[in-house]
């Protein structure tokens, strides 16, 4: 549907979603951990804002709750936990050197095009005005995946994982105006537990390899000499 047919509030949703996608790119190329955590928090806030605006524009009252949940979890609690862990691990000043950053950004652009290509045939018969966002949310998911693949730092990988979850929250809102409450709570609970466990693992990894550079976790391989 053309943009001119949407109300201003509905256009605002698209704008917020586009900004969330942009933040995925920023996250991907942000080398300083603390700044990356901040970017991630903003992305969570944007997803919450999308949810809230969809709720306002579509009079979907159950979405208020999930907007609050997203805001609390993704924009506050998890970034705060990550922040605290980074401090306790003494990584505040940590910044990673990225190999071939431009190439990775280009790969991310290709992923955006890919997600559009994947989603495009099914978008046609979507009901809600948010259906165009599905491609954006898939792109956020895939860019999170890309980040996990190419970052070596454990905290950065977790940020990629959590940003994937952001994309999934966005997908749930945009494609279906929110999942059933029990599912949403379950997913939020899983994410929270995952975050706690990630925290445990940061310390375990550092204990075992004296660093959080996951590339050094390379004892388990299929090659004969590896063992």
């Amino acid at each position, binding site marked *: 549907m053309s943009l001119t047919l949407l109300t201003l509030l509905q256009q605002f949703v698209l704008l917020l979603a*586009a900004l969330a996608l942009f933040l995925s*790119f920023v996250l991907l190329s942000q080398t300083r951990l603390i700044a990356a955590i901040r970017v991630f928090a903003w992305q969570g806030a944007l997803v919450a804002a999308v949810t809230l605006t969809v709720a306002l524009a579509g009079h979907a009252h159950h979405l208020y709750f999930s907007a609050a949940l997203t805001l609390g979890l993704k924009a506050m609690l998890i970034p705060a936990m990550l922040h605290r862990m980074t401090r306790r691990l003494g990584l505040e000043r940590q910044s990673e050197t990225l190999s071939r950053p431009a190439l990775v950004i280009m790969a991310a652009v290709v992923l*955006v095009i890919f997600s559009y290509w994947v989603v495009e045939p099914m978008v046609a018969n979507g009901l809600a005005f948010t259906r165009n966002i599905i491609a954006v949310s898939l792109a956020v998911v895939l860019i999170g995946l890309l980040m996990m693949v190419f970052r070596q730092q454990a905290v950065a990988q977790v940020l990629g994982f959590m940003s994937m979850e952001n994309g999934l929250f966005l997908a749930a809102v945009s494609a279906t105006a929110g999942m059933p409450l029990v599912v949403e709570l379950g997913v939020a609970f899983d994410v929270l537990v995952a975050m706690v466990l990630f925290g445990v693992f940061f310390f375990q990894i550092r204990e075992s390899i004296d660093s959080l550079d996951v590339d050094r976790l390379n004892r388990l391989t299929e090659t004969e000499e590896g063992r």
Partner: protein
Amino acid sequence: MSAWLVALLQALLYPALAPLLVGWVRKVKARLQNRRGASVFQPYADLRKLLVKETRVAHTASELFRVAPYIVFVATWLAAATVPLVALDLPIAAVADIIVLVGLLALARFFLALAGMDAGTAFGGMGASREMLVSALAEPAMLMAVFTLAMTAHSTSLQSVMAHHLADGFLLRPSYLFAFGALVLVALAECGRIPVDNPSTHLELTMVHEAMLLEYSGRHLALMEWAAQIKLLLYGVLIVNVFFPWGVGASFGALALGSGLAVVLLKLLVLGALLAAGETVLAKMRLFRVPGFLNLALLLALLGLLSHVILEVGA
């Protein structure tokens, strides 16, 4: 015939107003730094002074060195003439679209760089090579950004883009937001403003634009400086008129033109103040960070293009 007259008038307005914008930016900057600053008309006086001064040419320079200022000035001026300043529906739209605009700017830059190298000094060559580095990265971003606009309007003519935007009324277009960001970054790089280049000094080792002009004097220098001022105005007008076209004259009546001019001046004043504020807050970045800066512009432009396709077209 009156349409052509308006077009001519508008084309003349560019060189006339360009020094004023620079003067305004300098004034605001001075105020922000707690200085009184020179009058906003100081650039006019500077130009006049340069024009009457004796013109010296390095003995190692070739003919190209003498011709380049004229070519640079004319090309920049022509490029500016294609950007609607006070009114739409100008006949020049039939002759020149966005691609011509980018082409004319590239032509000007090409001769500027050649002239910089011509005298054979170290600074000139360094400046030229840096300028080409910046433009090689900025130009695709610029093209991509304007294509985003062109795709929305289904036309590469700037006037149609503006007319389309006006007809749609106020829409929150994600693609416009990204294109806006990209164009601002490109404009900062292309006009040699902070954080890419420092326009107020030619005593830095890392300068770009000023390094190419070091050998120029008198009339030649005046033309080069004037061209740079027109370029700044051009980008300013491009940004304010394309993204906020409201108030531009819809007809050729004196009232419409007058109010159009007043509105565009107001918008430029705001933009100039913002630029000055930005330059006060930011520091110049190291030269090897510039590609990253321009990659961001390219990324924004690409995202603009993609978000147009993904979010705005709809199936």
